[in-house]
């Protein structure tokens, strides 16, 4: 079997490596995404006080510390059996929406956008945020930076620190806001709504108005029929901060809806010999391999998955765009809800709809009189035993599970991070994209390799992203190996 290695993947968070195994004919036999995994996190945590977890776990990842902070804080609520007040929940959620505004913005403009705005065949050196700005104008770049700055300011104001927030407490939040701060945040939220609408218009103008891109979105190479997971509120609308976890089947019927604390009853992990990664799947359906369909327990947890798993969006403008997306992509409405969209590249569109929802929800919360309630702390008196907390991280459902002794010292820690949910779908997407593009005699060009990358980039995967060491040498490297795995050719592209 010949092996092609794409290493590293440009613009992927953390360091990953795609391995494509060819058969004797030169066709794709298998394709895998290899990810170096950080070691010893549970061991690191055990023996520490549980209340440190919101501050420790937000160090795991330099990209979404806010998500870990929030999941950990919610796990502490359960661990200490304290119900946060309505004002605390609103403050936390407002903080979390500000985080979503920055995170989804940067993905579209810096990571996902370049493929569409510049095209998958454009030179790699241009296919980055600078290329996007060059194409669509400097003013848009200024808006992207301004959006990030105002939301980082809100994160710092509410979270107590700029990068690694510290405000989460069991049953509370360490930082209340006053009327002046409320007004400031309200102003930013309005700007976020405008920016999200602008971004959706840009997507319509640049992507949807270009038939070649629409064809790419609708192409079989980027389509998978799986189960979908997302957190929903009492109306089955998308919610990032709290709710029940809902899973729908590939046809769109509700498969299960459960509380985060019951995750282990519904999700199990499959192990493969070629990687130390574990592949979560739906326990009740069972693991049938890296395959599509209703009989396969593979599920997906992404922005598109959250929309697929919901009945709609809780805010009016986001709901309009939600309907527009499902109508445009040919989804049918059955029993009052749309059937799932299986086109993986539509995840970029779904992400922008979520950006709009986050902005609208932030505005609702900032306009709520209760948000300035100064009583945001609670005295914890219960003896801790076990706590499970979950939020929707931008990259998928994030679950923290802690067990402690009676003094609150951790005895067991388990995390299912957002990207982990999607390991199996990502592997499937990489294989399918590779199969459609690498056939006997096909010359491997950067455009082809990048199209394969597009297959997984829409998942916005976050792999071991806690390391930030300076890279020593990072050319795009392609290694082709013979049947025995010996290297027969190595192509390096200094792009």
């Amino acid at each position, binding site marked *: 079997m010949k092996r092609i290695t794409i290493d590293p993947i440009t613009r992927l968070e953390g360091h990953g490596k795609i391995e494509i195994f060819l058969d004797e004919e030169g066709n794709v036999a298998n394709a895998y995404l290899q990810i170096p995994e950080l070691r*010893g996190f549970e061991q690191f945590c055990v023996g520490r006080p549980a209340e440190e977890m919101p501050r420790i776990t937000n*160090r795991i990842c330099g990209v979404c510390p806010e998500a870990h902070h929030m999941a950990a804080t919610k796990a502490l609520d359960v661990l200490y059996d304290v119900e946060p007040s309505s004002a605390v929940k609103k403050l936390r959620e407002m903080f979390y929406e500000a985080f979503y505004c920055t995170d989804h913005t940067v993905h579209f403009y810096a990571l996902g956008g370049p493929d569409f705005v510049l095209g998958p065949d454009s030179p790699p050196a241009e296919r980055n*945020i600078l290329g996007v700005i060059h194409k669509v104008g400097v003013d848009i770049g200024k808006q992207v930076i301004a959006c990030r700055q105002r939301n980082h300011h809100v994160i710092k104001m509410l979270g107590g620190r700029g990068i690694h927030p510290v405000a989460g407490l069991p049953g509370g939040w360490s930082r209340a806001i006053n009327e002046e701060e409320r007004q400031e945040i309200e102003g930013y939220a309005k700007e976020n709504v405008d920016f999200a609408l602008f971004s959706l218009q840009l997507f319509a103008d640049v992507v949807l108005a270009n038939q070649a891109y629409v064809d790419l979105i609708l192409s079989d190479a980027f389509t998978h029929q799986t189960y979908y997971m997302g957190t929903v509120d009492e109306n089955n609308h998308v919610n990032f901060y709290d709710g029940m976890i809902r899973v729908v089947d590939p046809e769109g019927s509700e498969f299960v809806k459960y509380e985060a604390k019951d995750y282990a009853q519904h999700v199990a992990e499959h192990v493969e010999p070629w990687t130390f990664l574990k592949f979560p799947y739906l326990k009740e359906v069972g693991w049938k391999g890296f395959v599509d369909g209703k009989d396969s327990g593979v599920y997906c947890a992404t922005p598109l998955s959250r929309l697929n798993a919901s009945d709609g969006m809780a805010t009016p403008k986001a709901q309009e765009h939600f309907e527009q997306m499902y109508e445009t992509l040919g989804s049918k409405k059955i029993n009052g809800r749309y059937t799932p969209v299986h086109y993986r590249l539509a995840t970029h569109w779904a992400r922008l709809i979520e950006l709009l929802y986050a902005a609208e929800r932030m505005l609702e919360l900032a306009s709520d009189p209760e948000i300035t309630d100064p009583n945001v702390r609670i005295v914890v008196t219960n003896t801790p035993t076990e706590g499970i907390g979950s939020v929707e991280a931008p990259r998928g459902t994030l679950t923290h599970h802690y067990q402690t002794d009676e003094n609150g010292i951790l005895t067991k820690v388990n995390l299912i991070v957002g990207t982990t949910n999607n390991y199996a779908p990502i592997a499937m997407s990489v294989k399918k994209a590779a199969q459609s593009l690498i056939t006997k005699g096909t010359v491997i060009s950067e455009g082809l390799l990048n199209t394969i990358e597009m297959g997984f980039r829409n998942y916005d995967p976050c792999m071991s992203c*806690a390391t930030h060491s300076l*890279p020593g*040498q990072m050319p795009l490297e392609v290694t082709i190996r013979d049947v025995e795995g010996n290297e027969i050719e190595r192509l390096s592209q200094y792009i």
Partner: protein
Amino acid sequence: MTRTLVVGLGNPILTDDGVGVKVAYEVERALASVDREDVTVTEASVGGLRLMEMMIGYDRVILVDALTGCNGNVPGKVHRMTLGDLRNISPTQHSACAHDTSLVTALELGSQMELPLPNEISIFAIEVENVIDFCEESTPAVAAAIPEVVEAVLAELGLTPLCTN
């Protein structure tokens, strides 16, 4: 007044990845006894756009970070680099490990946006051994390099060790 920002980069709970943060703590401690309002010391575990945004408004930035992937890696070896060097070791321009883009690209974006970014960026990079295991301690060779880097950063700030003792 020339405003200088010293940033210790890395993850303090990932063995050697946090060496830059440890250096920053030491630099901050050394500066506590001298009157240097022009210097801000901070830590961060971010790259790309967010790091560029942190630099807005400063005239000069000193970054301290762990370095991996060198040929013939010598843990604890210290390199003083410029942005140009960073450009050379990261030739793909968008290959950085951050969520968004490389620092080089982010700075270019910032200058296109006419943001007030520093004229001078110097980087102290320490070759490291382990950035995979969760641990608060650095490996011995890397830990041993910390005083040298602290001294080098202080020298860059125009302070000799005598001034801070």
